[in-house]
């Protein structure tokens, strides 16, 4: 057997690990995700010369739009996207020429046989070497059927049988199931036909620069890690607040709700990045091992006293952006007696040595006063104040706030003496703003994650056991809430910071939510 040699010319270049030649096949190519996110992200990668020179895109969906229609969607998507940094018609035209479209039913084996023939033809035309990435931009309910038919068509292994390093990878979008049982079933279904190393489960939050910066802040700076534990941290607050409502997606949201949409995935990802132990290395295995370990360390919610650790809410009529807005139950596609939560808050306990006794309060909701994602590390107050016989009787604890969006940055709140003859202390913030310091526009999360998949780097993707561990945390609350229809919804007004019970979740512990 021949030994693979490394490319000796790659060392020291800006892209130290190149993307290999491949075809990107998008199932659900006529859909909104493809148009708004995936095609602009692929264009950005092409414009930045990050796609391999041997590369093409194949769209696959039921809707008959043809090559021209698909190419037009690429052009429209790029024109309309706010995430496109440099518009270059030459790059766009060159990419469009490499975009093809196939009409087919996801349940039709003949369509997959046709797809196989087309991919073989494109391999010869573009030199893509039998390597494919299949992007499942479809409802999760279709994942199992698609992967089964890919397997039946012989498309789950590289067309060149790996003789020259070919690969097949699949990218699947959240939600990965709607509870623990369905997530386990979905994982089992996928793993029947492909290996875990072939599956890239996207949570686009992990593709955000500022989310990755949490790791840099913690593990590349000597000053934070020594105090990143129960001795110095009083508690942690994580907020994902949205000012928007459900934006016409009533039917989707009725099936999903805030816990499945945000908390089970994005918020637990953020929690794990804040709470995880330092990984040995940042390779996919070490990093994901530590991330999953800390999720597994979160104490199961106590169903006997669920209201002490979990709060749900649903917005009623109120205001947003200075104008009146309807309540959730008045939105299109929403049942008049819906008990789907649009707000949830949890008190999570990470049951390990580092975090014993440090609660993690997480909250997310729709129609809150502003759009804001923030992680706040609230430090304990100074143990002793040596300012007797002054006007200082209390000083607030320090807060390290990591702003994920908008105005990405980090601020540290601390006490400073107010100038003047008397001893007075005021909290001030030392601010680091990403935009002011680096000036560059971030790559979109999809751009980063598609590129990582092309490189075969699974670090920022979810693993089966990680997905299941996250479901295990929220599943008891979801089950209990689904079977309890006595809840009085709506219980917060659009434009407010959520139900009063959410405040009690903290006030019970002598704490309060940060004013954002």
């Amino acid at each position: 057997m021949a030994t693979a040699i490394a490319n000796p010319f790659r060392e020291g270049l800006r892209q130290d690990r190149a993307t290999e030649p491949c075809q990107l096949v998008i199932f659900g190519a006529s859909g909104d995700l493809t148009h708004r996110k995936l095609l602009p992200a692929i264009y950005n990668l092409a414009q930045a010369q990050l796609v391999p020179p041997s590369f093409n895109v194949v769209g696959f969906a039921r809707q008959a739009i043809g090559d021209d229609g698909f190419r037009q969607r690429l052009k429209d998507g790029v024109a309309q996207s706010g995430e496109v940094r440099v518009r270059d018609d030459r790059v766009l035209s060159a990419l469009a020429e490499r975009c093809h479209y196939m009409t087919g039913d996801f349940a039709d084996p003949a369509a997959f046989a046709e797809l196989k023939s087309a991919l073989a033809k494109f391999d010869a035309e573009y030199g893509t070497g039998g390597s494919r990435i299949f992007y499942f931009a479809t409802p999760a309910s279709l994942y199992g059927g698609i992967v089964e038919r890919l397997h039946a068509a012989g498309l789950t292994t590289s067309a060149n049988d790996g003789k020259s390093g070919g690969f097949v990878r699949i990218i699947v979008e959240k939600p990965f199931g709607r509870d623990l049982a369905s997530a386990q079933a979905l994982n089992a279904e996928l793993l029947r036909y492909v290996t875990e190393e072939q599956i890239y489960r996207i949570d686009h939050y992990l593709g955000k620069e500022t989310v990755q910066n949490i790791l840099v802040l913690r593990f590349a700076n000597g000053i934070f890690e020594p105090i990143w534990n129960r001795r110095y941290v009083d508690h942690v607050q994580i907020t994902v607040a949205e000012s928007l409502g459900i934006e016409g997606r009533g039917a989707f949201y009725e099936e999903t709700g805030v816990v499945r949409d945000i908390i089970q995935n994005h918020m637990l990802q953020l929690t794990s990045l804040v709470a995880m132990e330092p990984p040995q290395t940042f390779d996919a295995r070490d990093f994901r091992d530590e991330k999953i370990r800390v999720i597994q360390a979160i104490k199961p919610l106590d169903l006997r006293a669920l209201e002490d650790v979990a709060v749900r809410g649903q917005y009623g009529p109120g205001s947003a952006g200075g104008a009146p807005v309807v309540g959730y139950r008045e939105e299109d596609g929403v049942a008049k007696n819906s008990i789907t939560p649009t707000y949830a808050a949890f008190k999570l306990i990470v049951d390990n040595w580092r975090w014993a006794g440090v609660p993690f309060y997480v909250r997310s909701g729709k129609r809150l006063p502003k759009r804001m994602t923030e992680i706040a590390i609230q430090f304990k107050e100074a143990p002793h104040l040596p300012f007797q016989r002054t006007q200082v009787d209390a000083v607030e604890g320090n807060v390290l706030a990591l702003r994920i969006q908008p105005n990405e940055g980090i601020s540290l709140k601390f006490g400073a003496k107010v100038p003047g003859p008397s001893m007075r202390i005021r909290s001030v913030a030392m601010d680091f703003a990403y935009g002011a310091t680096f000036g560059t526009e971030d790559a979109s999360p999809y751009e980063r994650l598609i590129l990582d998949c092309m490189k075969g780097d699974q670090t920022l993707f979810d693993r089966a056991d990680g997905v299941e561990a996250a479901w295990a945390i929220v599943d008891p609350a979801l089950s209990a809430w689904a079977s309890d229809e006595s809840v009085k919804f709506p219980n917060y007004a659009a434009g407010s910071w959520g139900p009063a019970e959410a405040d009690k979740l903290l006030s019970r512990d002598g704490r309060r939510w940060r004013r954002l």
Partner: protein
Amino acid sequence: MSASIPLPKNFAPAAVADVENRLAARWQAPGSAGNGAVHACTLNLIACVEDANDTAAVSDVVGRLAATHPIRAITIVTEESADPNQIRAWIGSNPAGGSAGQISSEEIALLAQTDDTEPLVATVEGMLAADLPVYFWWRGGSPTGDHTFAALARLADKIIVDSIRFGDAAAALDTIRGLLAMRAGRAGVSDLNWIRTAPWRESIAACFDDAAVLALLPHMNRASINYYASGSTGALAPSARALLLSHWLTNRVPRLRGRVRIKPVAGATAGIGRVVKVSLSSATSPTALELERVDDPVGVAAVAKNDSGEILRAWTFPAETLSEAELMHRSIEAPARDPVLEAALRTD
């Protein structure tokens, strides 16, 4: 004598002792929205120009860099005719790189008499933004033996030169080797001319990222590099770029040692020294990888041929000519040391 230098219009004179206060006043003043201006600074850039007329070009580069690297730039001009024992200063007013309320570049220009090295270095040292890396951009000919260069280099975490300005190619590379030796054990040396070869190196690497092409590499045992020379093809004009690429190829594939041919070809005056073709081939078969510069759009067209001479792959890589600001941007973004350049220069 009232010496001056031809600076952009946004520069105003300032007393040396007053520079720091004047700069601080700008970011303590309210921004356009009534809030305090955001002041960010990630590095110091000391730019030493050979010709006073180059200060506008430096200011232009600083303005472009500031969009991604908030910067304190100190541009230095030394002239025989300048007043001795009197360093003159000007402050630029941040015309580019910052949005409203945001200060992303601070520009200072200094004029000193050529022999006033010691007070000049002390002045510069006092003007550096604290605890931030210092990049020293020498925008002139070979610095070997230059007192100002040697004194300012001691302040620097990274020295940036451009060997295209050093004249003879072999001597230029010797100068870079000398700088690396001088900086041994400390932070690095960056050559903008080496960065100019990046599109070639990236294109070659991209070709060999293809496993089928990489499989041909063991059969390739010779290389050639063509570059534009002035006049007839027989007149060997220096091209440090061709020489740098040759050293890099030999360092990456040691069996190419002594088997890289560098050939001048006639070209436009504006492109003198530019590499226009690179090939790796076999002495015993038609196996080859050939890369050639193409125009409109500017790029590198590459073809890989198998041992039967059949075209296995063909690509066209975008390879736009990098502006001075883009070269500086890449230099600043790169790690302080460039072990690949250092290894290439150690290669015979």
